[in-house]
């Protein structure tokens, strides 16, 4: 008899604990509430059963047997309610539910009278077994009715559910229910004098572990982890307690001789404390490992998976490889039926062929995750939706995720930005995703986000550098074409100038020829006046000839076709010659041209004498043109392996702005046009080009306007 009391007590405690766990896990969820109520009624029944068993008088026994009926009356209907909640069939079976509550409430009221439990009498070794009242019989009928009803519903649901987690959940609930009820039924036998003791009570006890198993393995009501932890905890408590008891016993036998003093207690405690301090962690780990092995066989090690993936990802930059690696590893470790990694940046979702509907669903999912960062477990949102606690955005996705056959969606976020998604299908074993799974996946997700971003950036960079290269090539080609065009234009221009010059020369020669002949008197005498004017014509023509020559020289220099006959040249000789040749022209203008001879003969330079002659002539001409009074002084010096030619005049000088543009084409000092209209504007440009072609340098110095100027050029010594 004590056996039944103990069994009842155990039932009571386990029901209470189970009920509390479930209810506290999610107070608001209606499923949890319903299960809590069921456990409450089961506890009430069990506690009362215990007290009934240990009652030592009839009144006590009667009182407690009525008490246990209190629980028993509601067990069935609460369980019925729970199962309806679980499978969301409340609306469907509302009538049955309401009827059930009404009828059992009626029996509840009847329990306060003697119409329900008539009294107690000894049966089969039990001192005080309740006798059924008149209303007990209909109660039993309804009890059976609803028990069978529930089992029928469970069967139906089991057959309707094709696969997956739900099917497993139902299976275990079904088993537990049958076991529980079958055991429970054995209670009623003695009520009707059938001489069979309620041996089934202990199977009722099994109901709890079976449901617990369903919860653990199939995440029913999601208190798996809690139960795991509490198993470890209770194991630890039991172990430490056992140690203490054993140690106390040992000490009392050996040291203290069965005497329990304060001293002996303290010493025992000390001993156990020391033992515990050392042994706690290994013990804990052992419990953890054992529970893991028994309860979670065949699971992967999440930390290893995370480390493994991190390792591999850090070495890959290719986007496709990243995706494949992730899919492989995660699918392999979690033993998934299907997994997909979605990359956001790729409009085509990595080029996989997807129908437009699927793409829409993906877009919806992506839109959801732009703002959310928590993973989405399909079972959970379905449960929340069924419990109707409060509306959540995720409910919109339930249908879509089912279409995608996706049970878990993990967002890959990098600094608040959505980079991709993990879409996980169901596990091959039908298990639900555990919290460990989810935590591991979240860690992997953040690593994956980084890896994907890197791979994407790398691809973009490759693309970019390809595009850049293409653009550079294009521009280079353009430049080359433009360059060729320019060269062609340049050549055409040079040819044109050459041709033009050539064509211009002929008429110029003719004019020169005939005028000179007339001036010589070949065709007869000419008057002084005629001679005068004809000379002016001749001079004008000479200017034209010079211009043509200059133009030709410029065109040749610019196209690099000017030829230089480089020979050793004595600049001092050349200069002296030119100066003496120019004296008559200078004298006509009432100016002077002095030449300061160098003290000793100068080293020779390598130059084309004709060209240098042209430069010197040009400089002398310039000086004279722009000098009204006084004259010019020419000087030659040798310094630092260079010969420096200088001509200083007392002319109108040059401003600093003019200095800058003096050696450019067609430039003349501002205001020059007012004084002298001769000169082509090409002289200094040509002189500069010729000097530079000889690797020399040409420049001008002038204090300011009105104070004369000095032109210099230098040539390197041979």
């Amino acid at each position, binding site marked *: 008899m004590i056996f039944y009391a103990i069994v009842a007590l155990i039932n009571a405690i386990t029901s209470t604990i189970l009920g509390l766990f479930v209810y506290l896990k999610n107070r608001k969820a209606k499923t949890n509430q319903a299960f809590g109520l069921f456990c409450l009624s089961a506890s009430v029944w069990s506690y009362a059963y215990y007290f009934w068993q240990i009652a030592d008088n009839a009144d006590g026994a009667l009182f407690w047997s009525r008490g246990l009926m209190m629980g028993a009356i509601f067990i069935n209907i609460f369980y019925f309610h729970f199962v309806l909640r679980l499978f969301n069939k409340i609306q469907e079976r509302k009538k049955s539910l309401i009827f059930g509550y009404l009828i059992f409430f009626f029996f509840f009221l009847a329990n306060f009278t003697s119409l329900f439990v008539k009294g107690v009498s000894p049966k089969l070794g039990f001192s005080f077994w309740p006798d059924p009242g008149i209303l007990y019989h209909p109660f039993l009928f309804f009890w059976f009715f609803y028990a069978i009803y529930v089992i029928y519903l469970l069967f139906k649901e089991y057959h309707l559910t094709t696969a997956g987690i739900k099917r497993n959940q139902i299976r275990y609930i079904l088993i537990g229910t049958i076991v529980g009820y079958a055991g429970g039924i054995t209670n009623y036998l003695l009520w009707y004098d059938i001489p069979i003791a309620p041996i089934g009570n202990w199977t009722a006890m099994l109901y709890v572990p079976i449901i617990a198993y369903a919860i653990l393995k199939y995440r029913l009501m999601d208190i798996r982890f809690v139960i795991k932890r509490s198993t470890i905890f209770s194991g630890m408590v039991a172990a430490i307690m056992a140690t203490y008891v054993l140690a106390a016993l040992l000490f009392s036998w050996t040291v203290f001789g069965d005497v329990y003093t304060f001293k002996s207690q303290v010493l025992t405690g000390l001993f156990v404390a020391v033992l515990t301090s050392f042994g706690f962690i290994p013990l804990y780990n052992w419990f953890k490992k054992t529970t893991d092995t028994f309860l979670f066989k065949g699971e992967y090690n999440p930390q290893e998976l995370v480390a493994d993936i991190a390792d591999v990802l850090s070495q890959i930059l290719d986007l496709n490889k990243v995706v494949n690696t992730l899919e492989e590893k995660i699918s392999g470790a979690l033993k998934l039926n299907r997994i997909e990694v979605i990359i956001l940046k790729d409009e085509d979702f990595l080029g996989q062929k997807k129908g437009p509907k699927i793409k829409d669903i993906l877009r919806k999912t992506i839109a959801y995750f732009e703002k959310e960062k928590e993973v989405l477990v399909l079972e959970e949102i379905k449960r929340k939706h069924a419990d109707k606690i409060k509306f959540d955005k995720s409910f919109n996705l339930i249908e879509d995720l089912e279409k995608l056959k996706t049970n878990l969606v993990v967002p890959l976020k990098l600094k608040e930005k959505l980079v991709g998604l993990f879409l996980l299908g169901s596990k091959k074993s039908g298990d639900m995703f555990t919290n460990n799974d989810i935590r591991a996946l979240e860690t992997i997700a953040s690593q994956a986000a980084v890896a994907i971003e890197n791979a994407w950036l790398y691809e973009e960079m490759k693309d970019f550098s390809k595009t850049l290269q293409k653009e550079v090539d294009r521009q280079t080609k353009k430049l080359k074409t433009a360059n060729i065009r320019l060269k062609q234009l340049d050549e055409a221009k040079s040819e044109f100038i050459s041709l033009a010059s050539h064509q211009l020369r002929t008429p110029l020669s003719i004019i020169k020829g005939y005028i000179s002949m007339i001036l010589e008197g070949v065709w007869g005498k000419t008057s002084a006046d005629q001679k005068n004017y004809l000379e002016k014509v001749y001079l004008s023509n000479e200017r034209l000839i010079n211009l*043509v020559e200059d133009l030709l020289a410029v065109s040749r220099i610019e196209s690099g076709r000017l030829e230089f006959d480089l020979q050793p040249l004595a600049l001092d000789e050349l200069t002296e010659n030119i100066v003496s040749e120019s004296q008559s022209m200078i004298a006509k203008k009432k100016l002077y041209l002095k030449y300061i001879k160098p003290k000793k003969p100068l080293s020779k330079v390598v130059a084309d004498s004709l060209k240098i002659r042209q430069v010197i002539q040009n400089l002398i001409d310039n000086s004279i043109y722009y000098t009204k009074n006084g004259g010019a002084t020419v000087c030659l010096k040798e310094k630092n392996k260079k010969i420096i030619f200088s001509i200083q005049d007392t002319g109108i000088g040059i401003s600093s702005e003019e200095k800058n543009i003096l050696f450019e084409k067609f430039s003349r000092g501002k205001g020059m046009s007012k004084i002298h209209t001769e000169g082509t504007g090409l002289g200094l440009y040509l002189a500069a080009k010729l000097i530079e072609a000889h690797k020399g340098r040409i420049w001008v110095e002038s204090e300011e306007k009105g104070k004369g100027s000095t032109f210099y050029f230098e040539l390197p010594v041979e």
Partner: protein
Amino acid sequence: MKKKKGKILIIEDERLLLDMYESYFKKTGYEVFGAKNGRPGIKIAKKEKLDLIITDIVMPDMDGYELIKEIKENAETKKIPILIFSNLSQRSEIKKGLALGADYYIIKTSLTPAELMAKVKEILNK
């Protein structure tokens, strides 16, 4: 009539220039033959006993260079001194002409006819 100072052939494709030189040389007392380009020029050279050939370079049909070559290859004419009178003033062009066998090179625009005449006298007096 004064004795002719010498027989000169002037080959020049520009009509105006040719006229000018011809008339000038004639006035100065030379016997002058004119040709518009190389081919008639060679014919004259072969026919007459010339003292000097003055030729331009840039001419249609047969240019000065070809003419010089032909003159120098022909036994009858190769002894006649040739004076190139051209506007081509590049060093290379001058060298080419002289290398082919011309004896002198003068650039047209730098000389008046009188100056040309002086040069011719110099050559013929040699």
